[in-house]
């Protein structure tokens, strides 16, 4: 039902556009005429933004152009495996594949993708008048190759932010108790020390009330915990790119010039392990999904949460008990780090998302280019942003529906727009999953307590270098 309403809204919007600019509406049917009988196949992860493409944008596109679109949505691992098998074996099953921001460098290294900028320049008849690469936010830069050409069409973008419960933080009694205990005013933390203090306070205060001081994405057998540490915690201590130095022969250990086992990384790990210990007990089995649910169930006073979940936590009463009580802030950092990041070095958190790419093995590249441009237009973005809480085009921030939602989200979209530059995507490594999986088993052992944190990071740095040597990147 919700989808139908949105589809109606989108159609209305397109209808208005078509009314004022008839030439635009004609472009799609003219361009589509050449590809009658073509069916485009796409594979993507089954997330709200992708489902919106499948349920709303694809049928709309088919109606306008006559080109059929079949989008297969599946779990992340399956999507990744199927896309790679297809492109590696050159079977040409897919005309569109979802590219998570962290896999783009691997695909680029293998020349799996069609250069969208170049393809459109080569055949101007395919260029949609309402499509412009300039319309995208800076997030699109992650999907550009060395020449600055667009290799994937951004469709999903969010940052991992600091969420806190405004009802708890603004409660005068709690404020007084906090003041009495710590001598400070209760407000969202900006440093790790403050964050720890607040977390400790709430865990103690919440005993018997089922409230804890923080979330922790600390699953002991799932890479979510590895990601929370390397992409959200370590950077706020000044350790970027997992502590691997790409310009220095991919060094990871301090001895070789890397920072994976640096003092900062070790301090970061101990800070986070402490938070894990005062987080709700389910944290040891929590991935990104469960931390969000923990927060939504009202079991945590604050936490680092992915933006795609922040939206439903703050606005969907069916899934969340804390609707209207959610505040957003920048993740707390170590003194000096924020200044360093603002000066342009490093980042304080993860800017995640994905794009649709066009595999070089596709047999319907022209028709697929049309579809990619269709979903990249400013005009289709508004309802899509509301449905999937993702923004990829600059103009979308000004959409009234988006601004309305932004208010409910405690200013999440505003933060994405104004402070998005402080966040960064995954490091530009073509070996993302490989090094993660090589080092993760050691990380899990640190979490279970089988290995000491310091010794564990030393082992992980050594393991990362070993794997990189094995893969042939480290000489």
């Amino acid at each position: 039902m919700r989808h139908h309403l949105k589809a109606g809204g989108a159609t209305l919007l397109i209808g208005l556009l078509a009314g004022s600019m008839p030439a635009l509406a004609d472009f799609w049917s003219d361009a589509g005429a050449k590809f009658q009988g073509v069916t485009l196949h796409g594979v993507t992860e089954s997330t709200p933004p992708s489902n919106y493409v499948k349920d709303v944008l694809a049928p709309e596109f088919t109606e306008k152009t006559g080109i059929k679109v079949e989008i297969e949505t599946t779990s992340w691992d399956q999507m990744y495996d199927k896309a790679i098998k297809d492109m590696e074996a050159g079977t040409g099953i897919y005309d569109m594949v979802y590219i998570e921001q962290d896999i783009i460098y691997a695909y680029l290294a293998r020349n799996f993708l069609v250069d969208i900028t170049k393809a459109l320049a080569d055949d101007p008849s395919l260029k949609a008048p309402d499509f412009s690469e300039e319309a995208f936010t800076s997030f699109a830069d992650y999907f550009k190759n060395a020449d600055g050409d667009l290799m994937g069409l951004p469709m999903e973008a969010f940052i991992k932010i600091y969420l806190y419960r405004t009802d708890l933080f603004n409660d005068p009694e709690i404020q007084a108790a906090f003041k009495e205990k710590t001598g400070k005013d209760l407000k969202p933390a900006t440093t790790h020390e403050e964050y720890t203090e607040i977390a400790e306070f709430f865990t103690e205060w919440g005993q018997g009330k089922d409230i804890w001081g923080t979330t922790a994405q600390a699953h002991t057998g799932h890479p979510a915990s590895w990601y929370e540490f390397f992409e959200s915690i370590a950077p706020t201590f000044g350790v970027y790119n997992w502590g691997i130095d790409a310009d220095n022969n991919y060094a990871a250990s301090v001895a070789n010039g890397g920072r994976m086992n640096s003092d900062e990384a070790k301090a970061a790990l101990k800070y986070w392990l402490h938070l894990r210990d005062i987080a709700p007990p389910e944290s040891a089995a929590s991935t990104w999904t469960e931390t969000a649910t923990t927060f939504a169930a009202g079991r945590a006073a604050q936490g680092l949460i992915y933006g795609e979940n922040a939206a439903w936590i703050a606005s969907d009463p069916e899934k969340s008990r804390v609707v209207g009580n959610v505040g957003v802030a920048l993740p707390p950092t170590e003194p000096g780090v924020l200044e360093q990041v603002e000066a342009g070095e490093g980042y304080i958190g993860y800017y995640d998302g994905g794009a649709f790419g066009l595999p070089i093995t596709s047999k319907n590249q022209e028709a697929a280019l049309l579809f990619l441009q269709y979903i990249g237009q400013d005009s289709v973005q508004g309802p899509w942003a509301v449905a999937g809480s993702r923004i990829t085009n600059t103009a979308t921030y000004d959409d009234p529906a988006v601004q309305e939602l932004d208010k409910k989200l405690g200013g999440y979209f505003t933060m994405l727009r104004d402070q998005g530059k402080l966040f960064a995507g995954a490091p530009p490594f073509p070996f993302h999953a490989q090094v993660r999986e090589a080092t993760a088993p050691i990380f899990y052992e640190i979490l279970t307590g089988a290995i000491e944190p310091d010794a564990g990071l030393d082992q992980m740095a050594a393991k990362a270098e070993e794997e990189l040597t094995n893969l042939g990147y480290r000489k």
Partner: protein
Amino acid sequence: MRSNKVGWLLLTPTLLLLGVFGILPFIYVLFLSFHQWNPFGASPDRIFIWGNNFRRLVFDGEFLLSIWVTLKFAFFAVFSEIVIGYLLAQLFMREFPGRAVFRTIHTLPLIVAPIVVGSVWRLMTTPSIGIIPYYANQLFGIDINIGRDAGTAFMFTVIMDIWHWTPLVTLTLLAALLSLPKEPFEQAQIDGASRAQIFWHITLPMIRPAILATVFIRLMDALRTVDEVWMLTGGGPGAATRYIGLHIWKVVFPKTDYGYGSAISVIVLYLTLVMCWMLYVGLVAPRNKGN
């Protein structure tokens, strides 16, 4: 014996099907296991490296640990399933009202897809809010945390497997019990044999092939378990439930290390084969030869 031609004719479709879909992929995997091939390595090409993958295996602590926990898991799970499954099958041999209904109820776990079984058990065992840890804590004051304690996680994977697969054992053993001739039992009762004697000297020898077949099937399936455990623990805490199927999955899917993954698969296949062959030669084959 009648014309063997007819016998071969009856076997042909099976041999053909298994030949095409069983042997061809195996040859390919065997071929890969002698190569270094990671599409996302610095060099994405397949490079022939003789037996290096196998040499690497022998010193791979993660792999060896995984084999060890898998064997432990398979032993506890399969052993319990056979014992419980046999007892339940015997119970179903009795006449009582509503037998068909109970039999249907008892087969229900089989119909639930492994990925869903994993999800349900995961939600039931989520620390502090899952129904099992919650009541364990409320009623007995026991703290169950599947994310922190390796033993607990291991135990739950075994219990989950028993819950899911015991019905299979019950059904196969029930079929075997149903097809036993009656006379030996009647004769034994007339001779005044005790229940234990009947079990050890008549029932067990007669259903031994069926038990063995069931053990084989459960054993090799337990060794290949992926979906349920992936959902329940993800292989954690640490490597406590990183069973070999899941381990291979992690090497092949996220790490895209096809060469090394193939080598592990070949070795695991070989180990499974040897284990089953020894069981088979020791327990089944001599009997069949006697026929």
